[in-house]
């Protein structure tokens, strides 16, 4: 049967009509990024209760997702989208990708991260990009702040991702911009460079190959990763072997919204409500390594110890990021040299 698929597809192309749509289709296509994941039992319960079928369509990272939504806004590939983050939110809003919808669940925490007052995007989760350290490899002398990382004590110990090619790399750059301001950040990077910071193109290489605290057992004990990463590096004694530096974090917020031109907008709204509901929000730490946007949702035990949510992460307005990111990346390139 399966081998017939291309032939059937060709037949479709050739103009033959194959099959037909069911008359009442309650499928909601959820366009999302590669990292989307949901607890099947929770999803099953929602589908059984509402009669809605959720069909996730994953495609690339947050950037690829945003651009796909922009390109298909005249005839969207789904009904609701999840995963546009605060570095891409302005672009999606400017292009009119999302329809207005204020979920009744939105004022239970997500409103804290609202991009603007229009209610087109609602925060689903937050995930902080923070410097991670391997205390054992550092002999217990662990840095704490941005400034410490430029200390000669940590020469040749730090590995970061290129902000031009990596999303955590960009978030860390934005964190330094927020911390040092437009005047000071380039100077800070000059000092990091003098202190032997290593730049690699992606998280995979930085974390799994260069970082000493991961399974790769690399040479460098300090890396840019996520606040949640230590929860995955728990030893046999149940304690995390690595730690996130909570004063170096930049907050990435992931949003969801109903798409303009959705075929099934009413059910799409219900799916958005579901993403904000307590049962779904409870699962986001384990499933997607992020923190719930909803208030009062308990974190898993492993997280409370190994990966608490940073209290005062740096942020920048989405509009500023959209306007300046390319210039910042180019200036970073000329400072650090890629």
């Amino acid at each position, binding site marked *: 049967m399966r081998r017939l698929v291309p032939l059937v597809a060709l037949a479709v192309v050739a103009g033959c009509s194959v099959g037909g749509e069911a008359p009442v289709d309650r499928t909601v296509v959820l366009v999302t990024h590669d990292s989307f994941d949901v607890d099947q039992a929770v999803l099953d319960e929602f589908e059984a209760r509402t009669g809605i079928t959720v069909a996730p*369509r994953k495609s690339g990272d947050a950037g690829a997702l945003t651009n796909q939504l922009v390109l298909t806004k005249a005839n969207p590939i789904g009904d609701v989208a999840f995963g546009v983050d605060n570095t891409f939110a302005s672009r999606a809003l400017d292009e009119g990708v999302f329809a207005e919808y204020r979920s009744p669940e939105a004022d239970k925490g997500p409103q804290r991260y609202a991009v603007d007052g229009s209610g087109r995007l609602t925060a689903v989760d937050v995930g902080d990009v923070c410097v991670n350290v391997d205390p054992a490899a550092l002999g217990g002398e662990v840095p704490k702040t941005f400034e410490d990382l430029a200390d000669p004590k940590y020469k040749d110990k730090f590995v970061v991702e290129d902000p031009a090619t990596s999303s955590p790399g960009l978030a860390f750059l934005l964190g330094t911009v927020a911390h040092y301001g437009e005047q000071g950040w380039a100077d800070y990077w000059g000092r990091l460079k003098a202190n032997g910071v290593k730049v690699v193109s992606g998280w995979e*290489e930085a974390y799994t190959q260069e970082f000493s605290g991961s399974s790769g057992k690399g040479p460098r004990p300090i890396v840019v990763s996520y606040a949640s990463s230590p929860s995955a590096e728990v030893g046999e004694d149940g304690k995390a072997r690595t730690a996130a530096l909570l004063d170096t974090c930049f907050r990435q917020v992931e949003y969801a919204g109903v798409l303009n031109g959705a075929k099934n907008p009413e059910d799409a709204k219900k799916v958005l409500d579901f993403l904000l509901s307590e049962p779904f929000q409870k699962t986001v730490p384990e499933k997607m390594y992020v923190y719930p946007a909803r208030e009062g949702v308990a974190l898993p035990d492993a997280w409370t110890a190994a990966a608490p949510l940073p209290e005062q992460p740096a942020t920048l307005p989405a509009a500023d990021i959209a306007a300046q990111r390319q210039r910042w990346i180019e200036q970073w390139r000329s400072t650090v040299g890629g």
Partner: protein
Amino acid sequence: MAQHRRGLRPAAALAFAAVPLGFLAVFFAWPVAAIVRLGFGSGAAGVLRVLGEGATWRLVGFTLAQAAASTAVAVLAGLPVAFLLARVPGSALVRVAVLVPFVLPTVVVGLAFKALLPDGGVVAIVLANAFFNVAVVARTVGGLWAHVDRRAEDAARALGASRWRAFTSVTLPALTPALGSAAAVVFLFCATSFGVVLLLGGARHRTLETEIYLRTVELLDLPGAAALSLVQFLAVVGVLVVGAVARRRRENALSLRGQAETVRRPRGGEWVAAGLGYAVVVLLVVPIVTLVVRSFAGGTAGYEALAGTGFRGSLQVTGLEAALNSVRVATDATLLALVLGVLASVALVTLGRSRVRPGVVEAVDTALMLPLGVSAVTVGFGYLVTLDALPGDLRTSAALVPLAQALVVTPLVVRTLLPVLRSVDERLRQAAATLGAGPWRVWREVDVPLAGRSLLASAAFGYVVALGEFGATSFLVRPDTATLPVVIGRLVARPGELNNQMAYAACTLLMGVTVVIALLVERLRVRGVGEF
């Protein structure tokens, strides 16, 4: 008329060609044109600005230079292996082993080369590209070499030519068509190589391919991406035209023999070539063995994990389901590509033998190769803005994955089949026709037996390419039908020791599947189409 009776009529050939060309038009030309036009949407100014930048042309220069260097290394390393495959008995295992690099996900190979050459850079990029592509040269050239009549070479030797002289003046010219085909394919693969360039080159060594990706996906700069796609397209067409012209001058009829007549134990200086061949095979196998060893770093934990969905359910399918998905999708893609590739090859050969202008034949030939040279991102995003116009909205359909893979596999089938079909001695066909065989009978009795082996070789190769395809697949595939390379990419992108072990175990599984399938196809030739 007399001429036409020997083969298919050109009109029939054109009808054959219409199927692959139509496929190409719908699933390649239209989407690419649409996305480029979108880049021009806000006026040509943005596109022209990018074309006017010196940085753009440095990008073009580096792209072509690294592709040329990678191709040179792959050809030099591939030739001795081709000799092994063609002339040394007992090389069936080598034939299968060289295929393995092709299925490895670029992120894994990139990380392996980065560990080997920590500074990365141009050398690492060239070596990694060559590592992937030695198989193309070895198998394409080896396929033809196996059938090159040994007697001409022996005659040259008997007349006093040195072994080297006999090789360069007799054997090499006979191999040129296959060599040209292989070099063209390798060049296109290297020019559009994405994963390893991004990983090993970082921001310093960028190519058109990585820059198109960054501009399309991260910077959302469509005019810039359109400008670069246009440049990439023109560069690829330029290279293909040069290749076609070079082939036109060289292609000639060979008297092909069955492999049983040409294989024998190497003698004297031939051992040097065989030794070089074995050395290359060892170099190819070392990174593979390293990966296998790494998959056992945590004992068998990684392999046990293949039955599940990763650390805290990182995946929506188990490793084993992903393997099944891979096999299913690759089967669809290969069958489709074989149909398209055979139709195209027969059409091209028939047109080449008829009075149709050679320019037309070359234009069709070049068009079929283009999908190898254009960015998967451009095609993928092109699908988004075009395919909704077709009934059934294929944009989000699972059927799109094998279709996109077939786009990449079809040119490989054509490139493997065409040199052999073209080398069929016209006198054999004339003799058959004189003896009363109709056009179909001539094909069945002469061309098919001679090309059958190449067809199977190209099927095995195409299958392996489809199995390993990552760029287009990761963009189009749905999570519940994820293939092994996609699953590996996803596991590597997550923290947690188990995910890492599972990723390497999945690599080993992927290599195992590849070897089994290649062996099965190799066996087919014994029971299937005979040789002479």
